[in-house]
């Protein structure tokens, strides 16, 4: 009797979780499971979209796919350079704006604008900026005498990658900035005063108070940016389409092509799975590296 009542209560409790559980299943578990299943199948034009069991052959093909390696390389270059720049710029400006106090709030809002714009719009904007004939970038550099003749930014692999990175940094560093500003504001004033009395200089304040307190915030900002940067799509798609020579094709652009243009769902799923696995690995590594010595919350 009592046991039966317990079960009823458990069921009632479970009922409360049901809507959230269904939502989670639909938007997260189901797509992941489906991708997992697809990666072990051939589902493509050739098979007429009829699933054929493929074993590990999709993954085998991945191992010998030079385009996969190249896109991975492009992705890693993009992610490491852009996230590093966003971090340095975001941190520097967060520290600077904190000094400005009240007017800092105004600049902070101003700097946040790029973050609020849709990436596709930003990509089109920067495509015009980078235009070799009429673009603002060349115009500015010519006026400043940095370059002697217009640079064809999107026409060469290296400068095209630099252009994509620049556009991404412009859009995303405000995110890092705002997270770090929040972190800086959470630091107790007494920490700085204690160090000031102890004889600390500005550098010491940064080294012994600001940085250790910011670590969890830095972790959050950087891991967010890394995940987002890994999935970069719009910028590349609009600015270069992956060119020249496929040198700016990131893994997400390659996945998109594989799914929607080549209609190879089995192989595309394998690509996406590898990307997800890599992200999990990077997240875990960063977590252990950055936060092992400092747990947030206390």
């Amino acid at each position: 009797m009592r046991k039966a009542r317990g079960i009823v209560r458990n069921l009632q409790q479970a009922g409360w979780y049901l809507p959230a559980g269904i939502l989670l299943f639909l938007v997260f578990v189901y797509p992941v499971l489906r991708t997992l299943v697809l990666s072990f199948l051939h589902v493509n034009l050739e098979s007429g979209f009829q699933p054929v069991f493929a074993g590990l052959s999709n993954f085998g093909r991945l191992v010998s796919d030079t385009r996969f390696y190249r896109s991975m390389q492009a992705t890693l270059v993009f992610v490491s350079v852009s996230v590093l720049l966003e971090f340095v710029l975001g941190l520097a400006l967060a520290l600077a704006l904190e000094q400005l106090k009240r007017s800092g709030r105004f600049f902070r809002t101003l700097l946040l604008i790029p973050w609020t714009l849709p990436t596709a719009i930003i990509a089109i904007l920067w495509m015009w900026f980078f235009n070799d004939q009429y673009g603002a970038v060349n115009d500015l550099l010519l006026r400043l005498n940095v370059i002697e003749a217009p640079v064809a930014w999107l026409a060469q692999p290296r400068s095209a990658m630099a252009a994509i990175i620049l556009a991404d940094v412009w859009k995303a560093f405000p995110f890092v900035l705002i997270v770090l500003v929040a972190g800086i504001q959470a630091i107790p004033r007494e920490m700085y005063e204690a160090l000031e009395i102890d004889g600390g200089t500005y550098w010491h304040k940064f080294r012994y108070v600001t940085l250790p307190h910011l670590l969890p915030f830095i972790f959050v900002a950087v891991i967010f940016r890394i995940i987002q940067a890994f999935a970069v799509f719009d910028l590349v798609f609009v600015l270069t389409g992956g060119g020249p020579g496929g040198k700016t094709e990131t893994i997400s652009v390659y996945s998109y092509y594989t799914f929607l243009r080549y209609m190879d769902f089995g192989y595309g799923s394998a690509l996406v799975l590898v990307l997800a696995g890599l992200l999990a690995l990077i997240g875990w590594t960063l977590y252990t590296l950055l936060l092992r010595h400092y747990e947030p919350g206390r």
Partner: protein
Amino acid sequence: MLWIAAAFILSLRMPGANPEGALSVLMEPDGTGTWRMLIAQFEKENPDIPIQMVEGPPATNAREDLYAASFLSGKAGFDIVYCDVVWTAKFAAAGWLRDLTDRLSRQDLNDFLPQELEAGSYKGRVYRIPAFTDAGMLYYRKDLVESPPVTFDDLERQARQLQNGNRWGFLWQGKQYEGLTTVFLEILWGFGGEWIDAKTKQVYLDSREAVKALEFLKKTIGTISPPAVTSYIEEDTRTLFQAGRAVFLRNWPYVWTLVRESPVKDKVAFVPMVHAPEESSAATLGGWGFAVSETSSRVEDAWKFVKFITGTEQMKVMYERMGRIPSRRSLVPAEFVPIIEKARMRPAIPEYAQASDILQRWVSAALTGRPGCEEALKKAAEETRALLGHAK
């Protein structure tokens, strides 16, 4: 991640089953209003078949992806497909297009341009009815050029002579995208080379002709073509040419309408693309047509519309109002006949998108970077063979 995005896109999907029972079609942005006008005309003649036109993005591959996403969702999507030449094989192979072979009259079969008909066919069956045709051609400044070039050497020599600090010799589309494939093919064919034999699936990209073609293109960069040419698409080159900043321009017929309203309006003429001395000129065939979706529940109504919109009178309107070259032999304007005659189709294979991507990537790589032309084409050939062999 992508799946979530895809599922989201699909859930927001276009009209599909709309309440009025209209037939739906995804089109390009209707800047001139011509499509709306033609549809209104059709609806007037067929009051029981309303048409709902969705204006898609201007980029053709974006519309290709939208169609694909719509078909993949499995539900009834668009009834009518406004279809580029290079999609037909893929869409037909996927089973998304209805076989229209037996609906064509003998008269139509004779009138449509044979290349356009073939480009609309897959495995001998017709899936797409051509509406207008496209072919690459060479525009030049007749106020500067005395006699238009015939060979690659002519083009290069004249370009060098006539260019100056404010004016480049030769503009083409060099960004890594479908346009690069079409440009490269014209050069390749002009040197007597070939890309893929659609029937045997043989790949010829590592031939000597292909190397010559790529070397020719590469040599133009920075000499007679601007360094940024490897980032240009059609509109970039057209804008520069119309501003009087180039002597030669490789582009499509649509430029002819626009250039006549530009600062260089009376100074431009065109000829077929140049070629090697022993060979003949070639143009990459483009063009659009209409097909009936396999998932449509109203095939007869859809066919009525396709038949209407590809009719003689409608093609005339398209030419007059949009500069689109009719795909009926009887209607091709005289000045375009020499161009259209040279037009050759890109291989009608289901794996076309992937094959073209391989070509673009390696050609673009050779144009902008380290791999030599020979090496790049060898790699491209290997990859293409692997792709087509893999497909069996």
